């Protein structure tokens, strides 16, 4: 991409040689607008990071950069709060739900794309229609059910209560079905003739071929559950089981809201996610393209 052709050979439509280096005005303008956009978009984000480095005395001054940067907020968050426990809770909840969504959604997507059976279209429409059910409508019956079953009294029950709504998603089923439809049937048929089991064909032939789709489904499922707020806020009774968003939102000390700590905790929560996105963004975007967002 960095190799440049000798410019003198390039002629425009009228046949006259181009000047050796023409300023590309639209391109320059694009960079300008994008940079302004980045500055505006990142200003609040940078403020969060920089505030996390400010001491309590400096918290409300107007300077952008901290005068005497300190890691004290981070020390307090890590040592004097339940942050590590909350981080671990979020990690557990987001990992388990992501693994479950990847497995079950791809299995349903595969079945709906590659098998012919009565009720196929109806099942697909029914699953898709759950996207229109507002979460608010579900949380009241969920809450009543979890209370009736006294689920949150045991440790596995408490974690299960937080996780169960996210174990499968209609969006993922839609995404995976679109992708599996592009796989050639002959490939699966060949494996069938070789005597492979149906599950083996799905697990060892089909699934490895849809890796980009799995990557993008994974990151969005993980993010969604990592940031989930409404249901965890409602269902978690014991502070031990709080997830990061709920724990941070309820970060109220006796001397009012501890903003320095909130900023440090949020920075610690964002940075790993951002690094993962930066590394995998090519696959994520490729995944969205290939999974038929194009229609």
């Amino acid at each position, binding site marked *: 991409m960095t190799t440049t052709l000798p410019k003198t050979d390039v002629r425009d439509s009228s046949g006259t040689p181009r000047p050796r280096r023409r300023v590309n005005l639209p391109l320059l303008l694009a960079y300008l607008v994008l940079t302004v*956009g980045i500055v505006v*978009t990142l200003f609040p984000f940078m403020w969060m990071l920089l505030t996390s480095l400010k001491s309590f005395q400096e918290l409300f001054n107007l300077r952008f950069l901290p005068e005497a940067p300190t890691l004290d907020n981070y020390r307090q968050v890590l040592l004097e709060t339940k942050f590590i426990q909350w981080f671990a809770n979020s990690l557990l909840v987001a990992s388990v739900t992501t693994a479950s969504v990847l497995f079950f959604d791809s299995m*349903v997507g595969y079945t709906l794309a590659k098998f*012919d059976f009565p009720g196929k279209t109806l099942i697909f429409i*029914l699953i898709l229609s759950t996207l229109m059910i507002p979460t608010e409508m579900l949380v009241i019956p969920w809450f009543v059910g979890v209370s009736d079953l006294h689920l949150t009294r045991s440790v596995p029950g408490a974690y299960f209560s937080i996780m169960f709504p996210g174990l*499968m998603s209609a969006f993922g089923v839609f995404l995976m079905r679109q992708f599996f439809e592009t796989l050639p049937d002959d490939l699966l048929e060949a494996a069938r003739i070789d005597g492979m089991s149906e599950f083996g064909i799905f697990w060892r032939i089909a699934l490895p071929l849809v890796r980009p789709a799995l990557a993008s489904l994974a990151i969005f499922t993980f993010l969604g559950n990592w940031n989930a707020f409404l249901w965890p806020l409602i269902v978690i009774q014991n502070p031990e089981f709080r997830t990061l968003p709920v724990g941070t939102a309820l970060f109220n000390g006796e001397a009012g809201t501890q903003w320095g700590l909130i900023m440090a905790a949020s920075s610690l929560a964002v940075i790993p996610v951002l690094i993962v*996105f930066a590394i995998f963004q090519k696959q994520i975007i490729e995944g969205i393209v290939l999974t038929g967002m194009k229609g």
Partner: protein
Amino acid sequence: MRRHQTRTAYTFLLVPLLFFLIVRFLPTLSALRLSLFDWNILKEQQPFVGTDNYQRLLTDGKFAQALKNTALYTVIGVPVQIALGLLVALLLNKIRALRGVFRALYFAPYVTPIVAAAWVWQWLFSPQFGPVNTFLVWLHIPPQNFLTSPDQALATTAALVVWQNLGFQVVLFLAGLSAIPRSYYEAAEIDGAGSSQAFWKITWPLLNPTIVFSVVTGTIAYLQLFTQVVNLNFTDQGGPLGSTTTVALYIYQLAFGRFQMGYASAITVVLFVIILAITLVQLRFLTRRYDL
């Protein structure tokens, strides 16, 4: 062969179908049932009240306001978010150097915890010393009250939501744009089409499915707006004079603040009907050539 396929298919679908039945469909029916009772989880008796909860809705001023606010958020948020997302995606598609870096940076707000974002927002739009007002004064515009003004709090909250969603929107449109074959643009250029012609004749129609997807999912999300509104106001009462309260927040207050779960369920049923109606209308009008 077909019988074998059917058996395998239903074996694979067994657990997922149970999940969708137990976690999505039965609770929906349960909400419908709860809405006919005066249901309070703390009380012994849960008397059947028929359509009383629905009749109460008709005269509930707070519900009317929450509904109006939710509609306003949707009408402001969805178009602004899509327009900005499309603009950034088109520009990112134009450049080569730094493209990945810019893309990741635009994505940063999407992964920022809402609690932190909400605090930064309060500081940015602070009436006394906020940077936004400093900037307005510099432009010779009088300082505004933003979040503390009943007239401006909603728009300021909507700005937070748009800011957070922009990154996802950009990724979505980049995906849609990269699916359009380059050769179409090359052919258009040979035929002498300008860049605005290329946009309206090629990009816009071929991006239609992505835009439909954005409009429909964006509308559903805005109609359920909750987290940003809660965290931008320390109380769960919504902004000044209830000016930012959404339907979702009102449901939360009723069901988990006052434990009026029957009445709250009636509102969720109304919200469901609204979402269903709007989605069907949107799909009908927006999907011109693509049958669903």
